[in-house]
């Protein structure tokens, strides 16, 4: 059986029939730099056809454009960012992040860091980590372009965040993941179940470190753009059982996550996580965690 067929069979077992999808490109207006109505008017005057994404506050999909939306003055001036629609969800799930100390543990290339700064209106502080210098350069350029002023970037592995000796109010874990076929046309040729399991182990190490540096009343948002349950529901089930964290209810686009995976019954609270099968957006998984006993 080919690797593609193996994955398709897995998705069927999880209740989704594989189909090839091509979601539209999406942008997010940086509200600290310009009013939404002003930016959309300027883009429409350039001939870019936009459609508001109903489940996002500042998100628009590109219906039609004769040129790249990454090559306009408005983009270069930081008035908007190009950010996939589902990827715009995680940062919005934090309870009021203004004035908080926030960890963005796997930050590059910085789309969500800039979004966090926007939601925080450049208040408080974001500590952004990543390991590859090339990616950190891209992150730094992104911060400069979008006028972000509240972020410190370190070249540190997320698994060593406690080296900073800081406790965080909010932690975004947009962890390294296996990805999905929507954003990478060669995905099925490149990925194996072994890769998925290796990534899942890495993600558990990152979750463990995040639990150590989270304040007692803090929040973690965990997200992947993977469809594989090892990186999603199974990791969160492991987290509940091993890290004294619990899943919080969230309200956002997506289906209830799976509570039964390949015959294994998971903690019932995992249904509060959200799983997004590819369609209007790429595949995605997101959830919010708090320390047990500190839930709202």
């Amino acid at each position, binding site marked *: 059986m080919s690797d593609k067929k193996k994955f398709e069979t897995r998705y069927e077992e999880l209740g989704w029939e594989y189909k090839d999808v091509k979601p539209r490109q999406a942008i997010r207006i940086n509200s600290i730099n310009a009013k939404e109505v002003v930016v959309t008017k300027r883009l429409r005057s350039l001939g870019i056809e936009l459609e508001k994404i109903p489940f996002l506050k500042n998100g628009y999909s590109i219906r039609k454009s004769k040129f790249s939306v990454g090559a306009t003055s408005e983009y270069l001036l930081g008035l908007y960012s190009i950010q996939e629609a589902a990827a715009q969800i995680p940062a919005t799930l934090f309870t009021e992040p203004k004035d908080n*100390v926030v960890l963005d543990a796997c930050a590059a290339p910085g789309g969500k860091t800039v979004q966090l700064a926007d939601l925080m209106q450049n208040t408080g502080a974001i500590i952004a980590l990543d390991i590859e210098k090339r990616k950190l*350069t891209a992150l730094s350029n992104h911060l400069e372009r979008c006028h972000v002023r509240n972020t410190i970037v*370190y070249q540190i592995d997320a698994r060593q965040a406690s080296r900073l000796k800081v406790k965080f109010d909010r932690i975004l874990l947009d962890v390294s993941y296996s990805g999905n076929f929507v954003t990478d046309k060669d995905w099925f040729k490149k990925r194996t179940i072994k890769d998925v399991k290796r990534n899942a182990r890495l993600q558990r190490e990152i979750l463990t470190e995040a639990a150590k540096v989270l304040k007692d009343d803090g929040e973690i948002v965990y997200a992947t753009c993977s469809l594989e349950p090892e990186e999603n529901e199974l990791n969160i089930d492991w987290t509940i059982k091993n890290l004294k964290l619990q899943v919080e209810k969230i309200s956002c686009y997506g289906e209830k996550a799976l509570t039964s995976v390949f015959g294994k019954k998971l903690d019932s609270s995992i249904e509060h996580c959200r799983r997004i099968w590819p369609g209007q957006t790429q595949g995605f998984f997101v959830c919010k965690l708090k320390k047990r006993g500190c839930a709202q």
Partner: protein
Amino acid sequence: MNQIKDFVSRFQTRISLDKNLILKRRDTYFLLNDSLKRLISKDIFYAGTYLGKAKRGKFFPSFNLLRMIAGKKANKVIVDKKTEWLFICGRDIFKQGITEVMGSKKKGDYTLILNQHGECLGFGKILCNLDKVKDGVVIENISDIGDFLRREKQHG
């Protein structure tokens, strides 16, 4: 710090920066705020507001710093839409593309380049006295925000 002051003065203006909040990492300058200053430890890659970089005695400003200068009374020219795009693509500025001049018109001075919305696109050097010439290239492009795209291409 002096390099920043000297650079800003070339636009015939001044900006006040709290030196206690300025961080120099190797040849790069950042402006912090109190929250960041409390949290920062050594070995940062980037912090707060990037101000620019000094290399071999020359100062290369960030677009953040240029925006700060643009918020003051300083040398500025406003350009039309077509010129805006050509400037972002790295071109010099023709006299015909300028719709308004503020501050110096003198050859050799630095001036900020703004679009019709008053947003700073970069800066250049005035090549000939702006009130004397009627056409031709009058401002040399030194730095423009198209650099973000060029950096993306360079770093992937």
